[in-house]
């Protein structure tokens, strides 16, 4: 197939689905359109895998779009999580019973969100990458505020203001990088092209590049949930509808993080590895510390999941700081494992929220004896996030630790895993309180809720599929092994 089709299909398919929702609204029958778009995205990613493995990077539209192994790896994760989120959406919307107009907007914005993420991972030009990441903020703003409650609107406001400011800093970084590239004799088109920039990185002025990369990493890092601009994350992830939280936490964070990885290649070639290693380690350890401390006293289970995402992003940043092909392979595997497990956990939290009309941990007791299937799936997802085998998170955390020690970052890795242990304890205690213990009397259902919808096997199917995928990835990466190592060697030199 021609490159332009392969590269445009993952962007156009969700756009078409969005158009479908705009025209026909959200019904039982049209709900399948989103699933179909996600399946198409996955099929396209598989086709791209073959093409990239045989002929190397695929380019289209004068290099504005470009796919290499890393893009394909990210596209596979975007497609998988989008599939699970679209599959679980009808059950979520049926239980919450918002009126028809809001459901239509939900359908449209969800598909635009997927299209923006696909554009971000397939961008070959830093300007396009920036526009796509900023577009994710714009389309998800109303999804975060979907419930129209005081807290949801406040979360949406904070989300837009903080993320736009952060991403504006990233744009300043891109502008300065362009300035440095122009003075290194690159043409206007090449100076924002990622592959051209990496090729000429050693010619860039180090003083300017240092400022540029620092700003870009801070800006995209904020969208990836790294300190200091992380304050939006727990609010937005806890207030958004569950399938949206799953997409935001499971893939949007790592899409932004893959942008950080792209800048790392330029920075390492222009400045040597020490500069970004120091910056990433500082951000990573601070993120882990904030997440661990706030997890300890957490009273809200959706916020708990959000802080757990920050903890995992911190670990990924430690892996990225270590650099090297093995470390990056572990980081990419961690992106996949965390994405899948966190998706299942957030989807489960949506059903728990509908049963209890409260996101307080204290309001949920003895869930295992009352709703064993839901509680079991939620518990398994949390165990996967905690890094218990066979979940792939176990393998990738081990890989990050080993690569960190091998890179001579023993003290930083020890600190990071000490903080992770703290988060581990906090998460287990909170989840144990929710799931275990005797069931209290009948639960008072809040006004406006239609009562708990039955959590049947068909409702549970997306959650089960997600858990099976994360376990399968932990046992073997199977046909993805070649893609993973090719993607890792783009960022980390062997």
């Amino acid at each position: 197939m021609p490159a332009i089709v392969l590269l445009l299909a993952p962007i156009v398919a969700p756009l078409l689905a969005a158009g479908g929702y705009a025209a026909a609204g959200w019904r039982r029958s049209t709900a399948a359109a989103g699933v179909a778009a996600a399946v198409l995205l996955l099929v396209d990613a598989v086709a791209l895998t073959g093409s990239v493995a045989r002929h190397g990077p695929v380019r289209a539209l004068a290099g504005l779009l470009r796919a290499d192994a890393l893009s394909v790896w990210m596209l596979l994760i975007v497609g998988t999580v989008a599939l699970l989120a679209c599959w679980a959406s009808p059950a979520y919307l049926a239980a919450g019973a918002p009126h028809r107009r809001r459901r239509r907007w939900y359908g449209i914005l969800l598909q635009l969100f997927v299209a923006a993420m696909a554009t971000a991972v397939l961008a070959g030009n830093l300007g396009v990458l920036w526009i796509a990441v900023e577009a994710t903020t714009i389309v998800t703003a109303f999804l975060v505020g979907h419930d129209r409650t005081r807290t949801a609107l406040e979360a949406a406001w904070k989300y837009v203001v903080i993320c736009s400011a952060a991403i504006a800093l990233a744009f300043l970084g891109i502008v300065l990088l362009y300035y440095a590239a122009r003075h290194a004799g690159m043409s206007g088109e090449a100076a924002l092209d990622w592959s051209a920039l990496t090729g000429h990185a050693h010619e860039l002025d180090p003083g300017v590049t240092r400022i540029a990369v620092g700003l870009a990493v801070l800006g995209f890092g904020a969208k990836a949930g790294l300190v200091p601009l992380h304050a939006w994350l727990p609010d937005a992830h806890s207030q958004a509808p569950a399938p949206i939280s799953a997409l935001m936490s499971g893939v949007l964070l790592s899409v932004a993080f893959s942008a950080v990885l792209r800048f790392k290649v330029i920075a390492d070639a222009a400045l040597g590895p020490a500069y970004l290693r120091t910056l990433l380690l500082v951000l990573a350890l601070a993120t882990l510390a904030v997440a661990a401390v706030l997890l300890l006293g957490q009273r809200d289970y959706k916020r708990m999941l959000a802080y757990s995402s920050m903890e995992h992003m911190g670990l990924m940043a430690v892996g990225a700081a270590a650099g090297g092909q093995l470390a990056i392979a572990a980081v990419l595997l961690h992106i996949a494992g965390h994405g899948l497990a966190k998706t299942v956990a957030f989807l489960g939290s949506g059903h728990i929220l509908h049963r209890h009309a409260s996101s307080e941990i204290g309001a949920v007791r003895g869930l295992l004896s009352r709703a064993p299937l839901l509680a079991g799936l939620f518990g398994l997802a949390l165990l996967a996030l905690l890094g218990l085998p066979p979940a792939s998170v176990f393998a990738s955390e081990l890989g990050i630790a080993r690569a960190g020690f091998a890179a001579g970052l023993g003290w930083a890795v020890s600190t990071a895993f000490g903080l992770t242990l703290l988060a581990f304890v906090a998460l287990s205690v909170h989840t144990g309180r929710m799931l275990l213990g005797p069931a209290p009397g009948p639960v008072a259902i809040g006004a406006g809720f239609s009562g708990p919808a039955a959590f049947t096997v068909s409702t549970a199917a997306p959650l089960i599929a997600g858990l099976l995928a994360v376990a399968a990835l932990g046992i073997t990466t199977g046909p993805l092994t070649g893609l993973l190592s090719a993607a890792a060697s783009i960022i980390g030199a062997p």
Partner: protein
Amino acid sequence: MSDNVYGSGYVQAIDLAAGVFLLCAVGALWRRQLTAMIRLFAVQGLALAALVAVLGAHQRSPELIAVAVGLAALRAGVLPYLAWRSLGDSPAEQRETRPVVNIATSLLAAAGLGLLAYAVTRPLVELAPSAATRVLPVAVTVVLIGFFVLVTRRRALSQLVGLLLLDNGITATAFVATAGVPLVVELGVSFDLLLVVLVLQVLAARLRSTFGTTDLDELRELHD
């Protein structure tokens, strides 16, 4: 430097535009009245457009002059109008009542931020010293002042003005350093900014219609 009369006129025009540009940011920090902050933002948009027009005239680039006209329409027209629409009707809503940092300290901080910007931008200016790149410290000062407004103001709409100042600073940086990033990207960025402001305006209207006027006052329902 071999500046002829035309050249020194060019330098003066650039410096004048940059001076007005900076003064507007400091003024926005000084005024508490939200309408005044928005008016200053609009004047700053004009100064930015003038700066770009001067650069365009100097480089004899009709494209840059067209961009300057577009910038003036967006940043001195559309965006201030949208921000102004976000204001409620009640006078109580139109003042920044309790900034985290008081006005006098804010102005001192602005001076500090200016010094910081000069220190940080030294490698940027040294790469290609010219009349245009010497404006870089001013642009970066405006970026920092915008960020400062964003983090020290409690009112949702002052935060919006902070975000807009920040963005003006970044656009100025883009034009004085590189005569603008490629047009596709510049268009995308302007479109994005417009959408962000529209989204914030809708959110502000929703917050107000659902929870009454005072509820925009303090965003602190969510915290740990």
